[in-house]
């Protein structure tokens, strides 16, 4: 999977694995389908979605992604940002 450079606009996948069966997800539900901006790559970590079920876990890149907070939460001031850690497999080019 190609790395996302800082500044890249990405879209969080509008995916709901929890509706298909037991799942453990670190991607907040309120961000699914939202657009954000990659701030930095934080490193690669074993995928917690597999670790949570004691399955072999591949290392995946984790990113800091910034979102326009008023657009996400319908509260806050213009310019407020939400900074969230998201794994690469939840991000797609916007």
């Amino acid at each position, binding site marked *: 999977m190609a790395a996302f450079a800082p500044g890249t606009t990405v879209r969080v996948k509008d995916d709901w694995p929890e509706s298909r069966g037991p799942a453990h997800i670190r991607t907040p539900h309120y961000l699914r389908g939202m657009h954000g901006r990659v701030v930095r790559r934080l490193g690669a970590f074993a995928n917690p979605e597999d*670790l*949570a079920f004691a399955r072999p876990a591949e290392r995946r890149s984790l990113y800091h992604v910034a979102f326009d907070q008023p657009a996400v*939460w319908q509260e806050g001031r213009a310019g407020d940002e939400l900074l969230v850690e998201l794994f690469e497999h939840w991000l797609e080019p916007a």
Partner: protein
Amino acid sequence: MCAPIDTEPHVLSEFDKRVDALRAVLSLKGLMTVDELRRGIEEIPEDEYHRLSYYQRWIRSITAILMRKGVITEAELSAALERR
């Protein structure tokens, strides 16, 4: 939409500390991970989740995971609780 967060430090009970120690030992022995702990907490039915304290949720999750993995049996757990 959001309520203010209580940021005051909480006093830990003897029970809380023992649950935390148990979780650390189980990790060191490779019997379960914190990711499994979190998943187990998320599985607690909502009404029960809200009735339990922070560390009660942990021990509820730890118990379910260890029983599912066969590390402990329901009979062993019952026997241990009887002895208390």
